[in-house]
Structure formats: structure tokens, C-alpha cells
């Protein structure tokens, strides 16, 4: 891998990462995403049951999650079924790998300096 490759990779995923972070910053969307991940595919109508917000609001939240790449949707009869997309967190995972490697390098330099 060339020396500036991590920089390009980082800026490549950064826009996407912001979408993911923004989508998950809202507690309602976070709980919807967690439910779909834990319980599998579900329709907006069923997801709205027991929620303190309207079905329309749930649909909007689901759209934001889908635009961030965190959900896939599939039309089933008259309803749309939403499903968590495990690939949606791939950018975040890549960031964690890059950041971890960078800190290993930096801490190695600090240790060398203090030797």
C-alpha cells in the first residue's frame, strides 16, 4: 500500500461515515436500527406499534437510515419491509481499523522517544 493510500481511503468513506453517524445520532432512529438488527425484517406499521411517534414519523426515520446505507427495503404486498444492512457499518469498521493502526504507530514513536 502506498504511503498516501490511507488518506485517500479515509476521505473516500468520510462522507458516508457522516451520514451513518448523523442517522444514528437520533435516539429514535438508533432504537429502530437496533430493533431491526435484533429482530430481523419488519414493516413500518409494525415498528410504529408501541412507539411514541406516528407511523409517518417512523417512515421518515427509516428513510434516513436507508439513505445512510444502514437499511435495505423490500416491497411485500402493500407494505415495505425494512431490514438492517450489516454492510452499513463497514465504513465505521474501516475507520476503527485505520485509527487503531495509526495509534499503534504513534505510541511506538512516543515509546521510542522516552527510551
Amino acid at each position, binding site marked *: 500500500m502506498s*504511503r*498516501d493510500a*490511507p*488518506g485517500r481511503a*479515509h*476521505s473516500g468513506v*468520510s*462522507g458516508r*461515515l*457522516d451520514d451513518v*453517524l*448523523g442517522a*444514528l*445520532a437520533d435516539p429514535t432512529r*438508533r432504537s429502530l*436500527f*437496533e430493533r431491526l438488527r435484533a429482530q430481523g425484517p419488519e414493516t413500518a406499521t409494525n415498528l410504529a406499534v408501541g412507539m411514541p411517534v406516528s407511523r409517518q414519523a417512523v417512515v421518515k426515520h427509516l428513510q434516513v437510515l436507508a439513505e445512510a446505507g444502514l437499511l435495505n427495503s423490500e416491497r411485500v404486498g402493500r407494505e415495505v419491509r425494512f431490514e438492517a444492512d450489516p454492510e452499513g*457499518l463497514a465504513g*465505521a*469498521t474501516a*475507520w*476503527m481499523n485505520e*485509527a*487503531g493502526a*495509526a*495509534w*499503534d*504507530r*504513534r*505510541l511506538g*514513536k*512516543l*515509546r521510542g*522517544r*522516552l*527510551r
Partner: protein
Amino acid sequence: MTELQTTPEPPSIEREIELDASVEEVWAAMCEPDTWLADEGSLDIEVGGTGRLVDDGIVRQAVVETVEEGRRLVYRWWNDGDGGSASRVELTLVPSDGPTRLVVRETLVVAPTPAELRAAPAPTDRSAAGVRWEVRFACLAMRQGALIRA
């Protein structure tokens, strides 16, 4: 990484290292960012202090949030230019009779959009915690960075 699979909290990483030096020595070394934190650049180690750091070919703007001398340094940094994701770095020193432990935690935060940059008011209310405040803080820092560069 396992954590990320079970809870979609903001992604973060943590590292811990034991250094065969006193807290004072480690802190002094920590405060020279161009010797370890980045290949080149500088960062003013004071609350609100700004800097520009080039590390492994990546250019970042940074702003210092917290300085507890000899104990804790918190700063936020983000890629220069592309409006990419920002992250917050917390460096904490844990003293002991033997080696000094340094704990690093880096957490992704939402980077401000250009519209938010233009509309950002000054961060006056620190109690209004959360993403919005963080965005405003980063905005202010970017403005300061722009002024210093100008």
C-alpha cells in the same frame, strides 16, 4: 470492534501503553506533537488552542478542548479540506510507582456541513451536550483555524 456489532454507539477505539518514564516526562513528551502525534505540524496545548498536523500524508486541523496538566489532554481533529468526519482524542495519564500508563481513546463525531459552518453561533452553552454542541464547537474551531491561516 465487537462492541460495534452489538451497539451502534459512535465508533471509537482505545489503546493503552505503559511507558518507563515519570508522569512529568511523559506529559512533556506528549506536549510536542510533531515528535509522535504527527510527522510535522504543531498544536497549542491550551484550551481552545488550535493547530495543523500532518500525519502519514493526512493533513488535519485540530483544536484543544481540555488540558489537565500532567493528567489529561482532549482535542478534536478533522481532515483538512474535504469536510470529512471529525474525531475526538482523549489522552489520559495514569501514574503509578512503576511505569506511567497512557490511555488513548479516539471517538468519531459528526463533522459540520458547510451550511452549519456559515450559520454556527458561538458555543456559549456548554451544558447543551451532544452532537449539536459538538458541531458548533468544531465550527468555531474551523473559523479560528481559518483566521490563523489567513
